[in-house]
């Protein structure tokens, strides 16, 4: 008889504690704020320190390869020809198939030209499409070309770096770059 009572009291206990849990769920259903983020329309707030896709301020870059050296996975490839202080760019690519977003490429830069942005949506259906080209132009810029051909004295640097912190500049460039990417895609 006792075991039968125990059996049914166990069932009653189980149902009771389940009901308590359901009460909590019901309370959350009615009174808690909605936490779901409707992703394509909105996104979680991303802090400005977020380690997303890189951005390169090409006119500042002095081709020192320190970022490539610091990279633990060798995902940065740089290729350029130096004409005195003028640089002829061939390649500056980051392979997002390898990149682990560790941010070790940022602190060694002596001229502070490589940054990380908050861009994260890199999904693609192309196996070779994850190598991003960071360059805004390749080869020489027209004014450098003219100078080199005219054997102008290389007193002035070809592209004077903008004075002061380039933070705002980099951000606006990110915006432009993202707009460009969006345009290409759709």
């Amino acid at each position, binding site marked *: 008889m006792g075991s039968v009572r125990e059996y049914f009291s166990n069932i009653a206990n189980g149902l009771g504690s389940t009901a308590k849990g359901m009460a909590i769920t019901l309370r959350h259903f009615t009174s808690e704020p909605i936490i779901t983020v409707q992703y394509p329309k909105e996104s979680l707030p991303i802090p400005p320190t977020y380690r997303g896709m890189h951005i390169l301020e090409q006119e500042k870059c002095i081709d*020192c390869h*320190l970022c490539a*050296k610091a990279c633990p996975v*060798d995902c940065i*490839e*740089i290729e350029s020809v130096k004409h005195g202080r003028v640089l002829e760019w061939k390649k500056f690519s980051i392979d997002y198939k390898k990149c682990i977003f560790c941010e070790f490429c940022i602190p060694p830069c*002596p001229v502070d030209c490589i940054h990380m942005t908050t861009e994260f949506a890199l999904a693609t259906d192309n196996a070779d499409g994850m190598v991003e080209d960071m360059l805004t132009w390749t080869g020489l810029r027209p004014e450098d070309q003219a100078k080199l051909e005219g054997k102008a004295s290389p007193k002035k640097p070809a592209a004077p770096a903008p004075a002061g912190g380039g933070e705002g500049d980099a951000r606006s460039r990110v915006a432009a770059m993202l707009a460009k990417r969006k345009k290409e895609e759709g």
Partner: protein
Amino acid sequence: MNEQQLHDKLRATGLGGIGELESSARDPFVVVEASVLLEVMAFLRDDSETAMEMLHNVTAVQRETGFDVVYHLCSYSRHHSLTLKVIVAQPEGEAGDWEPAVPSVASVYPSANWHEREQWDLLGVRFNDHPDFRRIILPEEWIGHPLRKDYVYPSTFGEIPLELDAIPLYERDENDPPKPSEPRPAGTPLTQPPSEYSTRPDAGGRAPAPEKKGES
């Protein structure tokens, strides 16, 4: 007890083959002959003053002259720890695939079981009288012990391609199977860095020369 007292205690047991307390490294350690290892371990575990209840870690280290097998013991009731080391020197004229052997301590500390299997798997150190001596992490058919300094990186494992530029399985032509790639020299990584700049010249670990920077 500190390490010095533990060492004195060990010496007082009268067991031969217990070396000096080396304090040259950051963590002091005691070098023990392989022949008395089990006795030393059993003493450290059973003595009420040392009371080393747990074998925390077993590591094998490959050095140029041979192998070190390092045991980290710690006591939870007495709040102290001790590092023991067995040094197996590489005999003259032995090739790179030489397998050192030490006695297994799994009979004293069962926790050594998996640790020792892992060291065999990755470094090729034999543990004699181990209860279940086989690979633990890598597949049974794996060739070589990857943590050896002269390990040759494989390009495939069975049919599974392991190289970055391998042809995918489903794109292979059955009439024209891919040629087996050239065996790479020992110690060469699977992918070469894209340019001479993007790897550290002394990444091999042993070369002590600090890097010279052009910029600074």
